[in-house]
């Protein structure tokens, strides 16, 4: 495009580059056809659908939901907040992993360094800890909300079972993380907790042995809990969450009004 002087103005050049970028094959490959990012968004029923349909959101949400489902007083967003807290814990957890060594000699020193030396270390550690407590709370409240609404009734029985497994996994995640600071609080809280596992009839000792990697909590337990905390339990819980979210939609979305 040329202006009156026969030269290309800066504005035109920017526009030209912009057009080229948005029409490029790379952008075309990233954005699905019909994506509002590609074709612009103006408020219309069609575009409202496209916002959901043309990206990964479509795995989580249908295009339309029941009107009562968006009433804040019905769900209090508890399931969504549990999921958000999980994401939040994953992000802050990755940050903490950079500075943490799961050995009896270094673990405590690393946590101390996080609290004093590392930029935002204290903030991120606090967020991770309080986020974990809040997640236990929000998952429990979510379960209570579902119970009081009778939302576990057919066809949602199986999703309730999955939900109970998710609650258990949340507790295990929180509990396994409890040991990692390797201070007196962590050591003895986990000792108390794992002693309870020893009371399981018949296989109690074996369960405890597998959990703490020995007859009592030791340096080996730290590594075991670390791997369980950062890898094994998150892996399992993500699989169960995927089934949980899928079943929410397949069972007809959110349960009906009371």
């Amino acid at each position, binding site marked *: 495009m040329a202006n009156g002087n026969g030269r290309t103005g800066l504005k035109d050049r920017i526009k030209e580059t912009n057009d080229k970028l948005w029409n490029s094959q790379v952008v075309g490959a990233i954005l699905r056809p019909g994506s509002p990012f590609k074709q612009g968004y103006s408020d219309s029923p069609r575009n409202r659908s496209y916002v959901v349909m043309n990206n990964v959101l479509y795995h989580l949400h249908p295009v339309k939901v029941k009107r009562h489902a968006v009433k804040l007083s019905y769900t209090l967003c508890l399931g969504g907040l549990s999921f958000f807290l999980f994401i939040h814990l994953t992000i802050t957890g990755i940050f903490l992993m950079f500075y943490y060594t799961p050995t009896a000699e270094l673990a405590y020193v690393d946590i101390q360094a996080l609290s004093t030396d590392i930029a935002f270390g204290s903030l991120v550690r606090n967020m991770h800890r309080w986020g974990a407590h809040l997640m236990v709370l929000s998952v429990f409240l979510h379960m*209570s909300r579902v119970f009081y609404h009778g939302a576990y009734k057919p066809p949602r029985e199986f999703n309730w079972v999955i939900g109970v497994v998710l609650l258990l996994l949340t507790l295990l995640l*929180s509990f396994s993380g409890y040991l990692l600071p390797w*201070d*007196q609080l962590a050591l003895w809280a986990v000792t108390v*907790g794992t002693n309870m596992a020893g009371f399981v009839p018949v296989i109690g000792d074996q369960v405890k042995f597998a959990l703490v990697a020995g007859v009592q909590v030791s340096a080996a337990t730290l590594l075991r809990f670390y791997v369980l905390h950062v890898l094994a339990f998150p892996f399992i819980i993500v699989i169960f969450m995927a089934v949980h979210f899928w079943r929410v939609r397949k069972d007809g979305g959110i349960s009906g009004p009371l």
Partner: protein
Amino acid sequence: MVDIPESLLRRSAEAKAKALGVPVEQVLAEMKGEGPAVEVPQAPEPSPAPSSPPVERGESPPEAGEGSETPEPVAVEEEAPAAVATAVEDPMAADQGDGVVEGNGAGDAQVAALVSPRPSVPPTGLPEGVRTQRLLTVVKARAIQDVKAEPHDKINTWPHLMLIEFGALLAMTALLVIMAVVIHSPLLDPANFNATPNPSKAPWYFLGLQELLSYFDPQIAGVTVPTIVGLIGFMMIPFIDRNPSTRPSDRKFAILLYSIFIAGSATLTIIGVLFRGKGFNFSYPWKDGIFFEDLADWLDFE
């Protein structure tokens, strides 16, 4: 093919009779295969077939408005466009002299076309080149279709639901940041296997169980309650509670039971967190202080 209700057949016959200018009874008899084929007195003017109702998927033409008692007949040419022709010239229907009810495959049809049967014997005596006409009648979908699914009152996920979710996300983030800035995570002395702190407490979500352990045998408090009641019992809830109603007034017992569970576990947890001191003996937090490190910083802002 299908049995057409008498009323519909009559309505169709009336429409056809009106279009052809012949008595209704004659058309009706012919439709039922009792009378002779109706002779078309003269070829009616061809109507614009492409805009005829069956072509429009699921949209109600103006003729099929709520008030119209007698449906407007629409003449369709034999050489109508494909969509119409398929509907009209169903060979089975033509052979058996039956009517064909064409619904919309998507199931959300507002109209369906009732096609009058083709005469078993083609009309004779027509001059060469004169094309016969057949009729489509617009009837209301509800008259011939059994609608099973009631439409839900639904709204778009974007923006209604997603804005609320985004608001909840922001609120939770703000809460987390404020908590993280104000309250510091506890960090006691390094782990020491030789120094057991007094008291030793589990994380708060297990403190209810630990509290239970001080009353009951470990086999009961440590095993039976958490695994049998807590885990398996909770998973079994949907299979034990066979009451199909979700209304609170119908499930008083279930709600009572769950509320007792919540109140009980909350009480046990609060006692375990606040009212247990040295040696896990009962103590008053306002007299002896709080023996729970996770809470230590909460009441000690800097």
